[in-house]
């Protein structure tokens, strides 16, 4: 915890009947940062967001914003504006009145209201749309009106619940870039919820991976991708190559593993303990596997022989399923392939792409 900490969640627990939606959740969010709760559906990320917004009361735990404990503050006094997945725009009000809703409540004068509405509409590039009815807007436009409605009241925190999931793929990318730009410009502390790994990576300062209400790992996108703490996180990051190995030797810089396909060397991780004979689970990022017809002369030490079981050519790349040993089939991709390899091949491994997963 440091001076920068703005939101503190401590031991948050919430159950709905038998389902535990939040299980002893604790994390901190720095002021002005963009933090994403990432996980599959049902992992509790939306529940956590709604607890922060005050739409539900936690069974246990505390939520602090600033230094204030907000557990007992009713939702309409929390100043944590939310952008809903379904946008939740008031259908009986036009764009102007939707955005001005919060301002009216705060007794902002008519002229200041007009000013502010125009200001936020400009921010999301929807100037001039004040008089439109909600039903006349496209999905992307509705999304931006929902965002501007939340921003209009200058909240302390911005909460976003999968705001892009109803948009088509192309729109998603452009809108999310806009969101990131606005957030950085305004410096507003933001908590974002999504199940899309790519989205989380492109937007966030920090990512909290959740599963079944529990926090799995929290860190920057770089940290999580290169050092997944467990198999779930690695799997969620899209990693597919999981290998059970035995530690053969432990050196100063590297560790040599005995895998069903042969010996592989990986970098020694500083904060993990390794002992000879220890069973270990590693993930091998497919970017670090090179596939060749013959043994490459240089990195012969981290090479295994294997056989192509299946391939999938997409034009841009060819994906190989290569079997290198008993029960050990690795997936690797070869971008811009000059040819498609079959039969016996050699896989060369980049040491830095082999990652140990602490077995909990």
């Amino acid at each position, binding site marked *: 915890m440091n001076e920068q900490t703005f939101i503190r969640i401590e031991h948050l627990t919430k159950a709905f009947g038998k389902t535990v939606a939040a299980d002893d959740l604790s994390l901190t969010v720095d002021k002005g940062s963009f933090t994403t709760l990432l996980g599959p559906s049902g992992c509790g990320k939306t529940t956590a967001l709604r607890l922060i*917004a*005050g*739409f539900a009361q936690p069974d246990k735990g505390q939520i602090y914003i600033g230094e204030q404990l907000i557990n007992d503050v*009713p*939702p*309409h*006094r929390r100043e*944590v*504006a*939310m952008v*809903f*997945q*379904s*946008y*939740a*725009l*008031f*259908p*009986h009000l036009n764009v102007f009145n939707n955005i001005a*809703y*919060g301002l009216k*409540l*705060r007794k902002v004068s008519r002229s200041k209201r007009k000013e502010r509405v125009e200001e936020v509409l400009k921010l999301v590039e929807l100037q001039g749309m004040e008089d439109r009815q*909600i*039903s006349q807007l496209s*999905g992307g436009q*509705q999304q931006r009106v929902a965002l501007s*409605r*939340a921003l209009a*009241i200058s909240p302390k925190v911005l909460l976003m619940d999968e705001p892009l*999931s*109803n948009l088509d793929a192309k729109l998603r990318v452009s809108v999310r870039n806009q969101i990131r730009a606005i957030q950085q410009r305004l410096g507003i502390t933001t908590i974002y919820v999504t199940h899309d790994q790519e989205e989380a990576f492109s937007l966030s300062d920090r990512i909290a991976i959740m599963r079944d209400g529990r926090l799995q790992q929290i860190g920057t996108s770089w940290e999580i991708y290169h050092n997944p703490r467990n198999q779930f996180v690695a799997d969620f990051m899209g990693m597919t190559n999981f290998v059970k190995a035995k530690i053969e030797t432990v050196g100063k810089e590297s560790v040599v593993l005995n895998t069903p396909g042969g010996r592989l060397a990986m970098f020694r991780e500083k904060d993990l303990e390794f002992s000879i004979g220890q069973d270990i689970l590693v993930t091998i990022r497919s970017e670090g596997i090179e596939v060749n017809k013959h043994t490459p002369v240089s990195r012969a030490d981290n090479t295994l022989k294997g056989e192509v079981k299946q391939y999938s050519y997409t034009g841009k790349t060819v994906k190989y399923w290569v079997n290198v040993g008993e029960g050990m089939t690795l997936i690797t991709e070869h971008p811009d392939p000059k040819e498609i390899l079959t039969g016996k091949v050699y896989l060369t491994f980049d040491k830095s792409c082999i990652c140990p997963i602490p077995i909990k």
Partner: protein
Amino acid sequence: MIMFGKPGSIRAIKHSFFITPLSTLAALCLGYIFAYAQNYTNIPGKRIFKVLALLPMLAPPFIVALSWILLFGPHGLITGGLLGVRWGILGWKGLWMVQSVAFFPYAYLIIDGVLQRVDSNLEFAAKNLGASGLHTFWTVTLPLSSPGLVNAAILVAIYVFADFGNPLLIAGGWSVLPTAIYRQVIGYYDLEGAAVLCTLLLVPTLILFLTARKILGGSSYVTVTGRETQSEKPLVGGITKWLLFGFCAFLSLLIVLVYGSLVVGAFTQTWGIDWSFTLKHWSVLTGSSGLSNSLLLALLAGLGASFFSLFACYFIYKQKFLGKRFWDFVVLLPAAIPGIFVGIGFLLAFSTPPFALTGGLVIIVLGLLVWNIPITYQTNIAALEQIGPELEEAALNLGASHVRAFGNVIVPLLRIPFLHGFAMGFMRAVTNLSIVIFLISPGQTTATVQILALVRYAELGEAAALAVALFATAILVVVSISFFTEKGIVAFVRGR
């Protein structure tokens, strides 16, 4: 046009246009508050409240009037007994209260459905932006539920405007249009005059009905945006919650009192004077064939309407473009027509040869049948639209003829809506007064007509006993049918 010369009828018309908005408004308020309490709080006893609120729908509406007399009449339990006053709450004030209680369940049902469909995310969003509970209600919940509110208002208004039994029992000299019509027929034997007044009754109800249809097709504030809505709603707490609880409890208590007093009255020697227990009033059941007639007529009318609707539904549904809307409208039209109009209409149409049917039970069955067609039709058509044309097409594709496809595929799927329609039709027929009273002939009677006569002769104990028997039978039938459909009773009554 001699009609309008008689000051009585003009007065009756004025009274009708006076009491209708009054009772409708009251019923709407009661229904809305009740529905709001159900959906936006977690007060205890919600399930009991829900069942009690729907109770008035199972009995003939004028039962409330009967109980009212027992409770608030000159010898009423509350007025005479508890408060020790000599007068009773009758006349238009009594009618107002009676109609509010008798018809609020209809408002409650519709508004309850509407409130459930209001996207709770919008209410959460309002709170998120800073709106307190009350402000959220005024600026979001109420506006969004207003189309449904209008719908409920129109439905209740139609019921109130055409209400016949309650004014007859309670309002006495303060006549409204339906009772004026009754007097024309029964008192003055003036069928033509009655027919004229009936038309006056019909026009406003038709207008209301058409307006409702137009609105239903128009704007309904269904969610404009994105995906599924959260099923939970923001709950109200604190004092408001308990005020709402108190309200529901009070209203429920009133309903219990209304129906409870009937049961008590059925077993009491002389209401208000001699409270000793007795079974003598129950002889009324064996004395005449009123109850068994009612059951038989309702059975026939219910079945007839259901089967007719089943086939009508199928053919109209198949029409697709040409004529579909027209036939749809024609079949649903009787819903706009007050029972009294159907009664008089049938009387006029079938009293002379070659269509002379009066004097038998057939005409009553026909009258009730036609009156029930819209209800049974609606349940079936809604189900058919849900089923969609593809199932039948699949059957045809596999080799079944149209008839086979209908019998093997459509009919089994329509089993539940059919039963539902029948149950509703049966209930309406068995509790009907406004049609049967004009179509019965000397020597026959139905339970409802009998109850009316008993009240007129101040045989309150027997009236109560018969009413309880009628009510109990209706519930029994509905409950047993609901077992066949494997849904709860409440769900069954609500039409799901």
